[in-house]
C-alpha cells in the first residue's frame, strides 16, 4: 500500500512538473529573413553551431539563458535534447575550434531586449511574455 502511494505521488509530481513547464517561444530579430515555423531540428542545429548563417548569408547569433535557469533547462531538454554538462563541454570545444557558443543573457527581459536589438540573433522567452518587436520562429509546447 505504501509503495503504491509512493508510486502515485511520484507519478503525480512528474506529471505536474511536465504540465507546469512553461511554453516557450523561439524568437528572432526582425531582420531575420527565414520562413517560420522552424523545426526543432533546425533550431537545434543553430544552437549546436552546425548552422551558422541565415539563408541570406547573415550570421546567426544564438542566445541562451544563464545556466540553471528554468527556461534554459526546458529549452535544453525539449529542443536540444541533450544534458547540460555535455553541452557545456561541447560548446567549449567548438569555441576552441573557432565557432562561437551561444551568448548568455541573465533574464527574460534581457533576452528579449538583446534579440530585439541585435541583427541575426535568435533566442527564447516564455509564451506568457509578449513577443514585441521580434519574429516568432516556433513554439515549444
Amino acid at each position, binding site marked *: 500500500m505504501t509503495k503504491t502511494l509512493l508510486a502515485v505521488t511520484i507519478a503525480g509530481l512528474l506529471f505536474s512538473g511536465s504540465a507546469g513547464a512553461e511554453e516557450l517561444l523561439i524568437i528572432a530579430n526582425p531582420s531575420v529573413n527565414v520562413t517560420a515555423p522552424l523545426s526543432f*531540428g*533546425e533550431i537545434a*542545429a543553430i544552437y*549546436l553551431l*552546425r*548552422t*551558422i*548563417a541565415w539563408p541570406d*548569408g547573415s*550570421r546567426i*547569433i544564438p*542566445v541562451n539563458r*544563464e*545556466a540553471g535557469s528554468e527556461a534554459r533547462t526546458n529549452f535544453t531538454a525539449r529542443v536540444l535534447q*541533450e544534458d547540460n*554538462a*555535455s*553541452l*557545456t*563541454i*561541447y*560548446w*567549449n*570545444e567548438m*569555441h*576552441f*575550434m*573557432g565557432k*562561437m*557558443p551561444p*551568448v*548568455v*543573457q*541573465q533574464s527574460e527581459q534581457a533576452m528579449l531586449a*538583446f534579440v530585439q*536589438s*541585435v*541583427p*541575426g*540573433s535568435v533566442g527564447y522567452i516564455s509564451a506568457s511574455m509578449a513577443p514585441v518587436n521580434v519574429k516568432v520562429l516556433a513554439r515549444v509546447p
Partner: protein
Amino acid sequence: MNRRRPLRYRDASRVAVLSCVLCLIGRGARADADYELGHGIDVGPINFAGYSDLVANVPSRGTGSLVLNDLSLFVSGHIGQLFNPFTEVELADLGLIHARAAPGDDHGTGDLVLERLYNDSYLSDSITLRLGKMLAPVGEWNVIHAAPLVLTTVRPAVTYRNFSEYATGISVLYSDPSARFPDFQVYWQPSGEFSERPSHLTVHQYRGVAGVHVSFPLGLLDKLGFSFQHSKDVLGVDQSLLGTDYHYSVGQLTLQGEGTYSDISDNGVIHNHDTEWAAYAAASYTVAEQWSVYAWYEGFLDRTAPSTAQDVLLGIAYKYEPALVAKLEYLQNIGGQPVNRTGLYASFSVLF
C-alpha cells in the same frame, strides 16, 4: 608534452596589431552579452579567449619542475560569410621552478608559438574553405588540445609525435547541419610550414602534407573517426599514416582512444623500422558531479626506437567549473624507451 613552434616577436607584434585592427571593425553585437567562463570576451565581431595550464612534475628520476605549460590567446573574427579570421598564439613551456634539467637544455625557456592563423570562408551552410596555418586533423586530441578540454595532463605520444600536427595551405571542411552524414576535412600543405619550429623543438620537420579526416557522429560528443595523412619530411622521408580515433560514453563511463600506423620510406635515412605504430586507450569515470577518475595505456613504437614504449597512467580530476580543471596523475613506464617520464604530474588549467 606538446611540441611547439616559436614565433618571432616581430611576427607576434604583427598578429597583435592585426587583432587590434580587427577589433575596430564592425559594431558590438555580442559585446552586450554576459561573460561566461570559457567563452572569452567579445569586442564587436571579435572574440578574445584563451587558456592557461600550470604543470608541476615530480619525476621518479631527475629534477622536479613547475612549468607554465601554455598561456594561449586565441582570437576569432566573424566578419561575414567570406572573412572569418582566426589566430592562436601561445607562450609555451615557460619554466618557473627548476625547469632546466641540465646546462644547455632548452626546455623551460619559454617559446612564443604561432599555433593557428587562417581564414574561414563559408561557401554554403555545410562547406567551409580554410586558408592558412591550421591544426592537422589526425585524431581528436590534436585539434582540441587545450588543457582544460583534454583528459590528462600528460599527452599520449600518439596524439602529436609521429605525424605533422599542422598544415599550412588549403583545406575544405564539410559538416552537415543535421548531422545525417559524416563530417570530413581534406587539407593540403604544398611546401614548408609557416612559422616553422626549429629542429630542437620537434622530432620531424615537414615539407609537404596532405590528408583527410572523416568523423562519424555517434552523439553530441561521441564519434568514430578515421585519418589519413601523407607527408614528406625535410630529409625526404615519405610517410603514409592511417589512423583511427573514438570517443564513446555509457552513463558515467567514457571511453576514448587513438591509434596510428605509418609506412615509412627510408630514402637513405637509417631507421630501425620501416613502419611505425602507436595507440592509446583511455577510460574515465565520473564519480561525482565535479570529480572523475581516469586511466590510459599507451604503446608507441617509434621508427628509431629498438622496442615499443609502454606507459600506464592513472589520475583524478576536479572540475570546479567545466572550464576550470585541476588534475593529479601518475605515469609509469612499463617497457621500452620512455617517451614520457615516469612520475607524478599535477596541473591546473583554465579556459577563459
